[in-house]
């Protein structure tokens, strides 16, 4: 029976893995490989430089700054967006008038293309005539340049990310809620548990597989959700809102310093690998599946 399991298992995985390897792992390995070479420039061909690129990275203040920014970004987005997404899923899993509109409202961030959405947020944030300032102005506050000052730029970016993510995760929680047999909540209710207790002791633990999924995605997204930065701040002012992946983009596709870009990518993969894959193997065994 065992070897049959092996064969079946492998057969099932092969098609997907073939594509994943071809379009992710092979090029990723090339990337790692590139990080040990210098960037080829017109007059200077690429040459093996060992760990030079890594040394350069260690000494690069921008790298450290974007790393720190990224940690703050992660701390700011992950818990809030997960909490909000759960709240949203719980909200719209009940019956009430206008539920489908509310549900769609939560879903809009997923549907709207980020280029467009970022521009809309740019309007919201614009000093003077932007939406936030118009609202604040109605209460007698002055102009605020949220994106244009280093103290608030990252926070402004975080807000947009939360907006984008919470609606996205909500969808998965909504689907997960459907898989919980309603008798369990009923039994808990009989035992005198109120809504909060039921959530804390029944619903939430039973949604753990989804939470594991969502939290790993949240961690990863905290490092890869940068599209809106291109439009909102371009990483500025003075890298105050730049994140690791944004810096990698700049290095690779604006500076065309592919070797250093590869080096930064390796650093990020290592960091995320430890965070996300570690997280997975740490928690997967403890998650109650059924």
């Amino acid at each position, binding site marked *: 029976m065992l070897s049959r399991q092996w064969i079946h298992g492998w057969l099932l995985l092969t098609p997907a893995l073939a594509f994943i390897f071809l379009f992710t792992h092979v090029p990723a390995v090339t990337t790692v490989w590139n990080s040990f070479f210098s960037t080829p420039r017109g007059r200077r061909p690429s040459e093996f430089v060992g760990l030079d690129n890594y040394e350069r990275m260690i000494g690069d203040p921008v790298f450290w700054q974007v790393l720190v920014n990224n940690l703050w970004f992660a701390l700011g987005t992950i818990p809030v967006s997960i909490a909000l997404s759960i709240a949203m899923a719980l909200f719209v899993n009940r019956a009430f008038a206008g539920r489908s509109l509310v549900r769609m409202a939560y879903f809009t961030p997923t549907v709207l293309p980020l280029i467009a959405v970022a521009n809309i947020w740019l309007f919201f944030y614009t000093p003077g005539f932007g939406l936030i300032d118009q609202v604040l102005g109605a209460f007698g506050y002055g102009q605020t340049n949220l994106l244009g000052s280093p103290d608030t730029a990252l926070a402004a970016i975080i807000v947009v990310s939360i907006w984008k993510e919470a609606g996205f995760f909500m969808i998965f929680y909504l689907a997960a809620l459907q898989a919980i047999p309603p008798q*369990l909540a009923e*039994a*808990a209710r009989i*035992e*005198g548990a*109120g809504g909060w207790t039921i959530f804390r*002791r029944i619903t939430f633990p039973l949604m753990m597989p989804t939470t594991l999924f969502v939290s790993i995605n949240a961690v990863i997204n905290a490092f890869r959700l940068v599209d809106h930065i291109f439009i909102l701040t371009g990483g500025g002012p003075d890298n105050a809102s730049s994140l690791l992946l944004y810096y990698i983009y700049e290095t690779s596709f604006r500076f065309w310093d592919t070797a250093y870009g590869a080096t930064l990518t390796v650093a990020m993969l290592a960091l995320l690998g430890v965070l996300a894959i570690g997280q997975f193997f740490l928690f997967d065994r403890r998650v*109650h599946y059924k």
Partner: protein
Amino acid sequence: MTQAMTQGAAGRAVRLDGIVKRWGDTTALDGVSVDVAPGSFTALLGPSGCGKSTLLRIVAGLEAASAGRVLIGGADVTKRPADKRDLSMVFQSYALFPHLSVAENIIFGLRTRGVKRAERQDRLERVASLLGLSDLLDRKPAALSGGQQQRVALGRAVIAKRSICLMDEPLSNLDAKLRQTMRTELRALQRELGFTMIYVTHDQVEAITMADQVVLMNAGRVEQAASPEALYERPATTFAARFIGTPPMNLIPAAALGQAGAVLEQALGASVLVGIRPEAMHPAAGPTNGPAALTMTVTGAEYLGADALVQGRIGDAPVLMRVPGHAMPAPGGTAAIAVAADDFHLFDAGTGARVTVPDPVSLLARTGLPVATPGADAPVLNQRTP
């Protein structure tokens, strides 16, 4: 609050008033009214799909009735949510929390109600040993046998000592011995703590041995709500007559009794069914030459361990008779049957309702049926140990 619970709350009355429950176009309950006295033990009995679980869920507040009212302790709780009704329940499907261990499942309610850890532990130990779960407390439900899961569900309900306890077939997956023990224990617990029990069962023995009141349901209606004795001795309908008693009561169309039946129907002015329980039929001592009416043609017999069931016919109506294993007539022959006057039941052949006769003894005498001396096999009153 904690204090009240450790002492067990005294039972509260439950009243159901014209409960109707519909799902789309299926009607699960069709005007059910039941009165449950405080501290009493009421069994809901009836065939599969008759609406027992639904009724229980309406009492619990898990299902909203389409019409009718639920009163608990005199207060109208029809709209009160389940967690505010202060009751406990065993679900037919157990509804164990799959992610919690047995111990955590059992004390779930105590934790939500903030009972102290020491007391929780204390009660848990008692309940677990009562239910034979002491060795399994750390397991997850998935690692339990069916019967063990059912016992955990039972534990979760009884540990709480609420003033009302609802149980939906709580013993269906237990073996006879354990079931016997559990019956006694549950009944004792209920007496001791004085809570009100509403107990769904498909098992008439359970209903009859445990309950103060049996509510017999059929197809979403109450057929009869009465004490076990009344249910057995004076079934209100043919349904009740056939549902209670194993094997069920023989219902013999009067016509099958020949002349005697004709006399009967004429006297009552309606076509009737004559009901006689298999255990109320006794082979008359020695071959009789009495009227042919109660002569049974024996066609077979089934051995049941302690006694035997004799299959046969009276007229063309098939009948069953229960005799001690050693008193079996041989198949193929005939046997004359004696039945006490009290053990004749008459039902309207059309409506199925019981026909009450002012003076049954003289009526029977007129028919010429061989009536045994009254009292000789009148059932003794229920003398269950408390």
